[in-house]
């Protein structure tokens, strides 16, 4: 079905080109294939498909529509999307195919760190651009950084640092971790442990659970027995949801503080406020922040029937920023666009004063949020109290700690 749709899109593109719609307008950009083509590579059907998935496609399409309406470009913009099934090989093959045969200029979303790292390599090799709005691993801007990749929305360092610092400073200084047993979980666990220790807390222990475990009660009982004041959930998606549910059932929430390290509004919506009230975590975006975010998010809601996750908002912002850069430089050649991007300050509903650093990290403010009590929530999706705005300079790993070879020291 998806393949057919993409096929149809490509078909339509070929037909329109064959019909001879030349781009002879004045000042027309020098574009490969006479158009800008954007690919959303995401999980369309698996565990992360609510986080990115169709919502990211919708957000990218909104950005294209808005850009067309505002800037009235003389060139064409096309959107393609595909399901990487959370498999690095599927993702990198798709990226290669897009770059080689379909003239895709920029790929976005690319959630799942394993997929993102693979696609980043292909992107460098093919000299295109990856604006990654979905992956979490800090490796993207450290060991595996690339001049062609921007890590746009969040990373494990930013997720770990907010609650690691804030919760520990509240006197809840002993931590136990429930960690998904793969690269992402380990990295999130390590970053949080560092943050906890740096703020005077101590780590009592950790239990590693397999990805997509069907039952978490056993692991939570171990966390309960540890008598730690805080139980950190270094997992994501369905695993986080089931951990929180079981934590409630077994009474952990009465005696210990549960901190979901990668929790998003999608998880809160799935669990409901009675189960999640009082939880604290870091978010990159909240729809109910100010008039600008509300206006954009309501528009998104109208199309997607759910409020946006930080990935969705980030994807909109990334696509819009990219298109503006193409217009400003008059080309879709990666080096020129990237140079412009790194000199740009991003100001939109997602980021205020956002800057793309040398290592590819997009630095913007993050939010430490606390989930509202059911009585405090005034309308559907009204879920967070913003406890603190973490300035970009504190939220993300400082350049002095960077392990990226591109960074000159």
């Amino acid at each position, binding site marked *: 079905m998806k393949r057919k749709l993409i096929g149809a899109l490509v078909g339509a593109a070929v037909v329109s080109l064959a019909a001879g719609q030349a781009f002879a307008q004045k000042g027309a950009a020098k574009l490969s294939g006479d158009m800008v083509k954007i690919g959303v590579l995401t999980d369309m*059907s*698996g*565990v*992360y*498909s*609510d986080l990115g998935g169709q919502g990211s496609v919708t957000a990218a399409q909104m950005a294209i529509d808005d850009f067309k309406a505002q800037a009235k470009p003389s060139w064409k913009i096309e959107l393609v999307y595909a399901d990487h099934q959370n498999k690095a090989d599927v993702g990198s093959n798709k990226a290669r195919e897009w770059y080689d045969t379909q003239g895709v200029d920029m790929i976005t979303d690319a959630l799942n760190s394993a997929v993102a790292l693979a696609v980043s390599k292909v992107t460098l090799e093919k000299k295109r651009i990856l604006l990654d709005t979905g992956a979490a691993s800090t490796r993207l801007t450290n060991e595996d950084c690339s001049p062609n990749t921007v890590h746009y929305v969040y990373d494990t360092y930013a997720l770990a640092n907010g609650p690691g610092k804030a919760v520990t400073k509240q006197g809840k200084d002993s931590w136990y971790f429930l960690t998904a*047993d793969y690269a992402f979980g380990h990295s999130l666990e390590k970053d949080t442990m560092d943050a906890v220790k740096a703020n005077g807390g101590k780590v009592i222990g950790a*239990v*590693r*659970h*397999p990805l*997509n*475990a*069907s*039952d978490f*009660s*056993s*692991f939570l*009982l*171990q966390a*309960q*027995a540890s008598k730690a004041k805080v139980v950190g959930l270094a997992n994501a*998606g*369905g695993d986080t*949801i*089931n951990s929180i*549910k079981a934590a409630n*059932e*077994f*009474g952990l929430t009465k005696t210990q503080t549960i901190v979901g390290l990668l929790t998003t509004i*999608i*998880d809160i*919506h*799935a*669990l*409901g406020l*009675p*189960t999640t009230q009082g939880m604290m975590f870091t978010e990159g975006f909240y729809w109910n922040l100010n008039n600008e975010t509300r206006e954009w998010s309501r528009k998104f809601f109208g199309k997607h029937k*759910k409020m946006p996750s930080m990935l969705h908002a980030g994807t909109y912002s990334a696509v819009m920023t990219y298109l503006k850069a193409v217009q400003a430089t008059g080309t879709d050649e990666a080096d020129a666009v990237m140079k412009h991007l790194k000199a740009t300050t991003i100001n939109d509903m997602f980021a205020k004063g956002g800057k793309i650093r040398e290592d590819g990290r997009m630095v913007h403010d993050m939010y430490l949020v606390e989930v509202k009590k059911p009585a405090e929530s005034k309308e559907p999706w009204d879920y967070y109290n913003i406890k603190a705005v973490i300035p970009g300079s504190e939220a993300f790993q400082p350049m002095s700690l960077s392990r990226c070879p591109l960074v000159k020291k």
Partner: protein
Amino acid sequence: MTEIFGIPIQAFMGQLMLGLVNGSFYAMLSLGLAVIFGMLNIINFAHGALYMAGAMLAWMGLNYFGIGYWWSLLLAPLGVGVIGIFIERSMLQWLYKLDHLYGLLLTFGLALILEGLFRDLYGVSGLPYSIPEEFAGAYNLGFMFLPKYRAWVILASLLVCFATWFVIEKTRLGAYLRAATENPKLTQAFGINVPLMVMLTYGFGVALAGFAGVLAAPAMQISPLMGSNLIIVVFAVVVIGGMGSILGSIVTGLGLGVIEGLTKVFYPEASSTVVFIIMAIVLLVRPAGLFGREK
């Protein structure tokens, strides 16, 4: 404090209890699979999806029609049973004479369709279903804090498993069923409507999955993927117990739940694989499974 293998006895008992809860789900699901395989010779890969459908029906009943937990416990399995009967009449009945592989492929396809359908409707993050008020709270067993709902899960599943075993092994109806499995032509010659029995057996088998789904709904997040996460383990349970063995699937289901629970304490990383290691060993030593008879 007394310790077993370096673990306080209280923690040990707690994990045993939790293993029993998970084992209850394994037992109920593998029981349905065993009944279906025993009577129909179909490897029902749609079992996990129908378990998910049971939970989904309970959620839909509550949110669209205001049907509470207790009625769901009755109605959702009935609904799943009806879906099962439809599947059997429209598709499966043509496959009995063919190789197992055809039934497996068909039901696998059905599972994908069902999951895809619900994923499209509700997304993958799942839907919340709160624990019925009667079961809010927990028992303090001294060695652990056992949520009342989990205790109910163990009780309900043991009752259902025992009733199924009793009907099939000890009643006249069960005798007909077993005869129909052994020799359908001869049984039919005695005036027993074999196709009807087969249809009802499939309906009952999947209704068991639906029942397990409703039981799981308050304890786990209802999500389109909840069945596929579980079904592979359940198949391993059936293989270990012996394909088609009723008692085997109940005992192995509970037993493996406990073993898995203990693995989560001693070496959590292996908790998702321990069942398969046991399966490999059992297949090497007793290819027909622990309770299976070689034909």
